[in-house]
């Protein structure tokens, strides 16, 4: 029976479903806890006794300064960082992969090297730099502090480079012979064929920034600039953790990332390379 292809296929699907369920359990748990009362939280029952939306009401009414400010700040910061990081990474990644210029490999090693320096070590010096640049302020320039820190991601550059390396040289050769400038080659040929990696970088960057607390907690100065993770902190007292609102916030925070991922799926998969290569 094990050699029966159909049986094996179905077994595989069953396995994948089981794993999916397993992967989903934390999220299910979060939803379930967000609908419970604080006293029920430790009952380990997946289904709450009664659907209780108090946690959501708390999130919308009691969070400082208010839920929509946190949400909009998160959205604003994540979007700008995604645009900055993706564009810079794509251009640099292409240059490292396909352009020849003196010092290219040394520069790439340097880029890689920056991934080996932990954030905790940079914390104090970066804060000092930002203070000198007057970005530690209550005004709108405060956001620029975060953009400055996050604009370049060595990992994104690395990812883009590896991807561009796999694209066939034939793609550009035709354009090169025609005398196209490198930037035009990049824009007209490489980018359209880079949709999978761009989608990947977008989703990873967005998600990383959406959930990030480390740099925002150091850089953002006033509650008006706070992002969603600050909201979770507010229900974490020194001693007690108010679980239902935290889980409500987690559920609400996860949804945008999930939607973005689902939306970008079609770009990650099944992109046909330009037809000029076939045959």
């Amino acid at each position, binding site marked *: 029976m094990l050699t029966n292809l159909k049986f094996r296929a179905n077994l595989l699907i069953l396995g994948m479903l089981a794993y999916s369920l397993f992967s989903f359990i934390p999220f299910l748990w979060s939803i379930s806890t967000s609908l419970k009362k604080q006293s029920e939280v430790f009952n380990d029952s997946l289904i709450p006794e009664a659907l209780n939306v108090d946690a959501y009401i708390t999130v919308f009414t009691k969070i400082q300064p208010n839920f929509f400010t946190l949400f909009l700040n998160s959205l604003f910061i994540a979007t700008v960082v995604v645009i900055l990081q993706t564009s810079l990474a794509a251009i640099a990644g292409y240059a490292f992969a396909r352009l020849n210029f003196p010092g290219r490999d040394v520069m790439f090693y340097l880029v890689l090297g920056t991934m080996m320096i932990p954030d905790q070590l940079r914390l104090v010096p970066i804060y000092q730099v930002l*203070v000198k640049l007057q970005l530690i302020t209550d005004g709108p320039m405060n956001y620029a502090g975060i953009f400055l820190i996050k604009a370049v991601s060595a990992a994104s550059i690395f990812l883009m480079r590896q991807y561009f390396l796999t694209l066939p040289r034939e793609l550009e050769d035709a354009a090169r012979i025609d005398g196209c400038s490198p930037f035009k080659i990049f824009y007209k040929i490489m980018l359209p064929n880079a949709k999978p990696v761009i989608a990947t970088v977008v989703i990873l960057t967005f998600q990383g920034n959406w959930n990030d607390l480390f740099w925002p907690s*150091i850089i953002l100065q006033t509650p008006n600039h706070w992002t969603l993770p600050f909201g979770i902190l507010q229900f974490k007292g020194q001693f*007690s953790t108010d679980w239902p609102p935290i889980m409500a916030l987690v559920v609400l925070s996860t949804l945008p990332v999930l939607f973005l991922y689902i939306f970008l799926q079609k770009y990650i998969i099944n992109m046909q390379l330009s037809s000029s290569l076939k045959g």
Partner: protein
Amino acid sequence: MLSRKSLIVGVVALALVTPFATPANAAQTVVTLATWGSSPAETEALNDAIATFEVRNPTIDVQQVVHNDHGAQMIAKFASKTPPDVFYLDAGIAQDWAAQGILEDLTKYVNASNFSLTAFNKSYLAPFKTGSALYGLPKDANPLVLEGNKTLMARAGIKTLPTTIAQFDSAAKLLLAKKITPMCVDADINRLGAYFYSFGGSIATGTKSGLNSAGTKAALTWALTNYKTGAFKTPAQLSAGWAGEAFGKELCAFTMEGAWLDPYLRDAFPKVAASMIKGQLPAAKSAGSLAFTAAYAIGKDSTNKDAAWAFIQYMTGARGMGVWTSYGVAIPSRSDVAIPVGYEVNGQAAKAKTTVTTPSFVGWNKVIDAFNNETKKQVQDKNMNVAKAVASIISKTSAAFPK
């Protein structure tokens, strides 16, 4: 003769400019206050105290900043010479920060305002003093006391809280027989250390290790034996985040915490709050406890030092401290402020003969880490050899003291 046009222009101009022309006495000094995150009760208490301060000082506006990682964020601000005007200073790290030269010596402000320090309990001032300099004024105090759950005690036939080590041991036996965990306490020097003194030993004398004394050895032996027999259990072993949570969930009959436990229980576990009784920690050779405190301090590079001092003077003065402690999150560090109702036991603990404040010297945190790491490792071993464990803990912790 003014034309109508220029009159209108003049009026409009005046209307535009007026909102910006503030009268001279509305000039406000903004004092930034940085605190660590805490419970809703503490937040309420602090806001209330600040409000009463601002009423009495209309030219000062206090802006509160809550740090989610107070230590790290304060250090970043110190290093860039932009510290807040006033901030919480934890006793455990006060000497380290003072040694870095980033704190303002408050002595000249104290003298200039004739602010009397006699009402302060001397041991709460000590962590913030170096030589003749004073770097902070203690805003409250929190000695550890023994809390008991009357319901669980009754189940084992225990009528009163144990007051001596011997009584505790027999109470523990009765509770274990009924399968109730007697005491939940973390293997932390900031809890177990309370017994070192009552057994006649110490944690530290100055900056030297006091762990090699017979008293400390006896205390540690008693504590570790309890962990082995199950009379003590750590919060992790009871699946709780901290001992207070385990106590609130009725997973243990006793615990040892400070005044912060009371508002926490009232909020999260009201039933247990109602059946809780408090007493002194079980006494060995003498009664005693460990007390925690924190101070308000000013940074050397802070901008509004005079206004900051006005704030500190109020909050550590009788009136301000009274408002802050009335919410029951801590007891006063001054003798001229009444102990809030229901905290008489905490007040007594503060006065007991061998009650000391937690040690405070440069490098204290390293000692804490060494003790906690080694003790937790020993305690998790089911086959722990108590004598060997005690020796190992003492040697590893003593090695972490500053040379």
